[in-house]
C-alpha cells in the first residue's frame, strides 16, 4: 500500500502541506501583514467616500443578483427534474456555459447587446434606460456568472428525495404552492442554502465581467474588486491590501457557512 511506509507517508504529507503553504496560506497571511503595516492610511483609503461606495455597490449588486438567481435556480431545477420536455439537454448545457466562458467575454457579450450602440441600444435609449455602465449592467453580469450555482446544487437533491411525498401531498388535496412550500422546499433547503452561499461569494468577488460592463466610473459604477485594483495601480497599496483583507474575511466567513451547510446536507 502506498503511504504505508513511514518515509513515503512523511514525503506525501510534506509535499501537500508545503504546496498549500506556499501557494495559499503564507501569501494569504502576508496580505494581513501588509494591510496592517500602514494601518492608518489603509483605513482612511477604505473609508473614503469612493471606497465606501464601492463596497456598498458590491453588496447591493449581490443583494439583487443572488435572490433572482435563487428563484430562477429553484424553479429551473424543478422543471429539469420533475417535468419532461424537449430541449432539456440544451437548457442543461446553457446553464453550465458560464463555467466555460471567460468573465471578460461575458462582459463583452453583454456590452454588445445592452450598450448604447448595442443590439438593444436604440430601444433602451428611447425609453430612457441605461444598462451598460450603470447598475443594471453590473447586475446582469453578476447574474450571468452566478447562474449555475443554485441549479447545480438543487438538481441532485431533488433527484435524491424523489417525488413520492409530493405526490402524496397532491393526493391529499394540497395545491402546487402548498406542496412546494410544505414538502419540497424543506427537503431541499440545505442544498439551496449551499448554492446561495457559493453564488454570494462569486457575486461579491466578480471582477472581469464587471470591469468590462461597468465602465469603472469612480464613485459610481466601481465595485469593491475594481476599487482594489484601482487603488493598487494608483500606488495606494495599503488601501488595496486593506480592501483585500475585508474581502478575504468575508470569503472566510462564507467558507465556514459552506462547510456548515455541507454537513447539514449530508445528515
Amino acid at each position, binding site marked *: *500500500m502506498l*503511504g504505508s511506509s513511514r518515509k513515503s507517508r512523511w514525503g*506525501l504529507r510534506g509535499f*501537500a*502541506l508545503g*504546496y*498549500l503553504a506556499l*501557494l*495559499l496560506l*503564507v*501569501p494569504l497571511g*502576508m*496580505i494581513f501583514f*501588509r494591510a496592517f503595516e500602514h494601518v492608518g492610511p489603509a483605513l482612511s483609503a477604505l473609508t473614503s467616500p469612493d471606497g465606501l461606495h464601492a463596497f456598498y455597490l458590491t453588496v447591493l449588486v449581490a443583494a439583487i443578483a443572488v435572490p433572482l438567481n435563487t428563484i430562477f435556480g429553484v*424553479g*429551473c431545477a424543478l*422543471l429539469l427534474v420533475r*417535468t419532461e*420536455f424537449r430541449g432539456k439537454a440544451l*437548457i442543461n448545457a*446553457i446553464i453550465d*456555459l458560464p*463555467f*466555460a*466562458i*471567460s*468573465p*471578460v*467575454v461575458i*462582459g*463583452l*457579450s*453583454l456590452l*454588445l447587446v445592452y450598450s448604447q450602440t*448595442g*443590439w438593444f441600444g436604440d430601444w433602451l435609449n428611447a425609453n430612457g434606460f441605461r444598462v451598460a455602465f450603470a447598475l443594471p449592467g453590473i447586475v*446582469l453580469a453578476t447574474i*450571468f456568472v452566478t*447562474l449555475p450555482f443554485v441549479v447545480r446544487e438543487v438538481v441532485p437533491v431533488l433527484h435524491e428525495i424523489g417525488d413520492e411525498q409530493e405526490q402524496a401531498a397532491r393526493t391529499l388535496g394540497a395545491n*402546487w404552492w402548498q406542496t412546494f412550500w410544505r414538502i419540497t422546499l424543506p427537503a431541499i433547503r440545505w442544498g439551496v442554502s449551499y448554492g446561495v452561499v*457559493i453564488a454570494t*461569494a462569486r457575486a*461579491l*468577488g466578480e*471582477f*472581469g465581467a464587471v470591469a*468590462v460592463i461597468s465602465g469603472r466610473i469612480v464613485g459610481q459604477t466601481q465595485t*469593491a*474588486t475594481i476599487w*482594489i*485594483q484601482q487603488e493598487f*495601480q494608483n500606488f495606494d497599496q495599503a488601501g*488595496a*491590501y486593506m480592501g*483585500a483583507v475585508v*474581502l*478575504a474575511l468575508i*470569503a*472566510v466567513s462564507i467558507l*465556514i457557512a459552506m462547510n456548515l451547510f455541507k454537513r447539514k446536507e449530508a445528515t
Partner: protein
Amino acid sequence: MTSAVADTSSAAPPRPASLPRLGGAALGRGLVVAYLSIIVLIPIAALVAQSTDGGWSAFWNAISNPEAWWALKWTVIASLIVVVINVFAGTIIAWVLVRDKFPGKAALNGVIDLPFALPTIVAGITLLALYGPNSPIGIHAAYTKAAVIMALLFVTLPFVVRTVQPVLMELDLEMEEAAASLGASPFTTFRRIILPSLMPAILAGSALAFARAIGEFGSLVLFAGFIAFKTEVMSGLIYQGIGSGNLTGAAAQSVILLVIALVFLLIFGRLTKWSLRHAG
C-alpha cells in the same frame, strides 16, 4: 379579466384535472427560456454576430496577428501546464486528506475551498504580497510566466482535490491489501489498483480546472499583467481590445477562446467516459 376567463371556460367542455398543472409547467418553461435568453443566449448571439462584422479576413486577422497568435498559444500551454501540475498535486493532497492522520487535518480540509470563495483580484494581490517586488523572501515572480502559472494554480486548486477525495474515501482497502500480500510493490498497487479507479475523477477535475484556467482574468491583472509576447493571455488581450474600441477583433478572439474551451471540455468528457469503462 377574470370574468372573461370564466365566460370562456363555462362555454368550453370541462377541463381534465391535470391541465392547470401542465399550464403552470409551460409558463415556468417560458420564464426559464426568457431569463436564459436575456442573460445568456442573446448576448452570446451578439458576440458571434459581432465577430463576423468585418468579414472573414478581419476575423482571421484578429486571431492570426502575431500578438494574438502568441497569446492564444500561451493561454493553451499555460492551462495545460496548470492541469498537469494539478493532476499530481491535487491527487497527492486528496490522498493525504483521506489516508493520512495528523493534527489540524480538518482545518486544512476546509482551507482547500478558499480559492472558490476568495475574489480573484484578492488571489492576485495575495500572491503579489509574497512573491511581488517587495517580496520578504526575495522571490520576485511578478510579471513573469511563472506568475501566470502560479495565479492559475491558485484559482484551480480545489478542482482535482475535490473530485478525487470522495472517490478515494469510497475505495475498498481490501483490494490494495490483497495486492500487497500477493507481493505487489506499493508503486504497482497504486498503478494497477488505485489509479484506474481514480482516473475518471482526476479527468473530471482536470476538465473543470482547464475551463477555469483558459478564461481566467482577475487573478492575473495585478500579479502577472498582460505583457505582449511575455505574459499576455487571451482574456487580457480581449480586455485590451475592448478598451481600445476594437469590439470586432475582441469578439473574434472571444469566439475562438470559447470554441477552444468547449473542444477541450468535449475531449476531457470523452476521456472521462473512456476511463470509466476501464475503471473495472
